[in-house]
């Protein structure tokens, strides 16, 4: 091509491309501006992040002159921008290009305290009950919170039974509307976050267990003391549930990630408790049993809890200690809830986990599937022990078991009339376990020690309860602050 002709053509084309480029940019800018102005399009909660989004600030609440007010307007604008979840998903896709994500760590690999050796039986070792401070975290941010609290706007109590029917006609009910705005439950509680560090290997993640000596000693003393206080009144059972990291990771990985030895820790807890209580506490050693089944689906991939199957194996151990016959799994009616993306997913937001959602198997108790629970605001609701969570959001499906985490719940089994009763003191690991107990007691009281405010020992005495069962995850009881709370209500 001739130089002149080429120059001419290039200039013309360059102009065209340049002008289209300018136009494209301004189009995006204008669309962004218009979208930002359409207030009704703005979300109030993020499903992806499981939280309530920033609200528009009220002028009298924050100071205006130093810019605090505007800062919050900024935050509100960005936080509630239309199509937030879609944009976030896009960003997540970009972030997955940052590197190789077959392995990920969230939080830090701190290592736990050294686990002391305890000599079996005999002398009552003095264990200091003072609490130190070891990686305590806001308890509110942990775990699954009840979804049913959420069942809309607070007029729920009497309507719950109908609401089950209502749900079927309105399958989308469990959406944004179920963020509890009654009863003072804040959105933070809705975050099914994991409290400690998380390690992800491929399509499965693990919560890392780090032993805390201070927390352990508070727990040990509290449980042993309760046993003594209830001597002759009730039998105290204690079950400690290890994390999947302890059961399902290889020994090398466990060492590499400085994970505390759950077996040794369990030994420390059990032996110490028995040394103090004079072997009166019945400890349930489930570690070895779970180990035998380590290749089965006993822990979720995308959530830090165990599955009902894992809980079932633990239940058989409990039955042995209690001296009753465990029911076999096929005796129960089984419900399945696929598409569960739990706490690990909401913490890591990883594609690998998203592509490997969990399916929750739940076993409906034979005697009854009805329970009632009291919310943090004091309201009592009737609910299903195994609740159909098919239409619930992917992140909250673990709440299918015993209505999730509530301060107090109660199950009456009409097919048993011997007056037998027990109280289960638990955090969310207990939820998957309790349904198996239903067919062994006339009455089961469930207490989540994180939210319950009364004294449990008096509760046991007043109600003439025969069995007290602690079902707790080792990692969850490694928090000094929480353990002080537990000790204060036992």
């Amino acid at each position, binding site marked *: 091509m001739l130089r002149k002709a080429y120059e001419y053509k290039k200039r013309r084309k360059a102009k065209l491309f340049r002008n289209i480029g300018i136009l494209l940019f301004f189009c995006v800018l204008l669309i962004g501006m218009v979208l930002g102005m359409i207030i009704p399009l703005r979300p109030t909660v993020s499903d992806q992040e499981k939280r309530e989004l920033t609200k528009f600030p009220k002028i009298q609440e924050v100071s205006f002159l130093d*810019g605090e007010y505007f800062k919050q307007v900024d935050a509100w604008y*960005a936080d509630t921008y239309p199509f*937030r979840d879609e944009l976030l998903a896009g960003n997540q896709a970009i972030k997955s290009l940052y590197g190789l994500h077959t392995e990920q760590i969230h939080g830090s690999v701190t290592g736990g305290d050294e686990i002391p050796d305890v000599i079996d039986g005999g002398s009552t070792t003095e264990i200091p009950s003072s609490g130190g401070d070891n990686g305590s975290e806001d308890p509110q941010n942990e775990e699954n919170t009840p979804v049913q609290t959420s069942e809309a706007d607070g007029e729920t109590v009497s309507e719950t039974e109908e609401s089950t029917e209502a749900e079927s006609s309105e399958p989308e009910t469990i959406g944004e509307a179920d963020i509890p705005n009654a009863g003072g439950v804040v959105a933070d509680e809705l975050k099914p976050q994991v409290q400690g560090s998380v390690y992800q290997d491929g399509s499965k993640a693990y919560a890392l267990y780090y032993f805390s000596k201070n927390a352990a000693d508070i727990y040990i003393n509290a449980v042993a003391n309760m046993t003594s206080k209830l001597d002759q009144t009730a039998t105290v059972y204690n079950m400690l549930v290890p994390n999947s990291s302890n059961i399902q990771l290889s020994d090398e990985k466990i060492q590499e990630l400085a994970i505390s030895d759950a077996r040794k820790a369990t030994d420390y807890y059990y032996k110490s408790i028995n040394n103090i209580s004079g072997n009166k506490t019945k400890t349930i050693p489930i570690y070895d049993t779970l180990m035998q089944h380590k290749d089965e689906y006993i822990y979720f991939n995308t959530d830090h809890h165990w599955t009902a199957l894992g809980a079932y194996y633990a239940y058989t151990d409990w039955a042995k200690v209690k001296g009753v016959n465990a029911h076999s799994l096929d005796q129960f009616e089984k419900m399945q809830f696929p598409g569960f993306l739990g706490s690990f997913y909401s913490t890591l937001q990883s594609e690998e986990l998203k592509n490997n959602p969990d399916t929750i198997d739940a076993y409906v108790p034979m005697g009854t599937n009805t329970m009632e629970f009291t919310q943090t605001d004091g309201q009592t609701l009737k609910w299903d022990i195994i609740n159909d969570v098919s239409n619930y959001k992917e992140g909250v499906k673990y709440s299918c078991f015993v209505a999730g985490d509530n301060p107090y719940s109660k199950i009456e089994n009409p097919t048993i009339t011997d007056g037998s009763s027990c109280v289960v003191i638990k955090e969310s690991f207990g939820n998957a376990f309790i349904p198996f107990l239903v067919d062994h007691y006339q009455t089961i009281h469930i207490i989540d020690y994180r939210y319950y405010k009364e004294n449990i020992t008096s509760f046991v005495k007043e109600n003439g309860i025969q069995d007290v069962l602690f079902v707790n995850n080792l990692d969850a009881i490694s928090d000094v602050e929480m353990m002080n709370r537990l000790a204060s209500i036992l």
Partner: protein
Amino acid sequence: MVFSSLLFVFAFLALNLIAYFFVGTIKKRNIVLLAFSMVFYSWGGPKYLILLLGMTGVSWFTARKIEEKEEKKDKRKWIIAECVVMLGLLGIFKYTGFFLENIKLLTGFPSEIPEIVLPIGISFYTFQLLSYVIDVYRGEVKAQQKYWKLLLYSSLFHQCIAGPIVRYQTVAEEIEERKITYNDLADGIRRFSVGLAKKAILANSCASVADTLLPAGIEGLSGVPTANLWLGMAFYMLQIYLDFSAYSDMAIGMGRMVGFHYLENFNYPYMAQSIQDFWRRWHISLSTFFRDYVYIPLGGSRAGNWITVRNMLCVWGLTGLWHGASWNYVFWGLYMFLFLVGERFLYGEKLKKIPVAGHIYAIIVVFFGWVLFKFENVAELGTVLSGMFGGGHAFSNPETSIIFKNNLFLLAFSIIAVTPLGKNIRDLWYKMADTKRKVPYIMMFIDMVTPALLLILSTMALVGNSYNPFLYFQF
């Protein structure tokens, strides 16, 4: 308001551009810019606007006085007054706490140190106003007769709160009269969107990796393995450049969109061949400020070696102090001073003779410079430095390799982003097209879609990003 926020991009900037292009005359356009600048500045705290208005008022007044006076002596009085007021206010707001703390350390008094909040951008606009009045004093530029036009210069949201430090000379004519060509508009758009993406995607991501690897506080840092410290500092080194240069890119880009031509503030500083070279490429508007208003007036390098060293010491002590009211910044300035003196008098020439050595040397010196820069707390600084060379820290932990692998491509891409590779490829492509006389459609197409695409990508990144402060806001 920060540039890399959705509110800024989709509400403030969009409305600003609409209003700007909607009104016709240059006067109205200036009023639009001024009004938006006032809102922008107030956003960070309306009460500090008074300070900006006042300081601009003082400078406007003294500059006119200087121009009026015939006698050098009289001019001098006014320039001294200007310097005292400007530097005095900067000193009060920025250094009172630091000064009193040190007095307290030495004497025990005063027992209580007042907490003074640093008004946003004061370090930048003070220097802009100073440069303006000094230039008037030197007769290099005419004093602006209209207060509001000077206010437009000092408060213009493009550069008011985080630089570059634009000289009044640079924009004096453009304030009165400027033309916007389509090429300027296209260049401005490209510059702005590249800056936005650099900040929202790269700098923020590097920052979050650096923060993971380098936890805050002495307790957290003392447990960090050696390899993590090095890797964390590498990410920090990338972050600080990407972050700050992104802000300059956006400022230059927005200026260009409306017809202002600000000078470049960065020129690939991590490609420097020496520390002197580095400072010709890093925050150019600041180093030229100190060169023109401190170093040269003191006699520069023409009055013998000792005077030169003294002058350099002055400049680098001040440069350090300008970055923050804390000893580590002073150390950082003096650290740079040592190497600059070394280069000037000892090994500068030798370094030039060995290929690549200069570059490696500069990178290493700058790297450790950022370690000094990052840790305001001397104990933390000590922990990190000793930890980087063993110092009782483990070499690595499982996080090291996982975090490295998780961010491998981010690291690689960020490194490429601090080099002129992309720019060179683009230039070469266009040149090749010219020699072959074939219209470079592919490159043109890339240029065409890049701004819009980067804007979309940045939006996605900003939506999910709670982590967003510009590093240079504290200065």
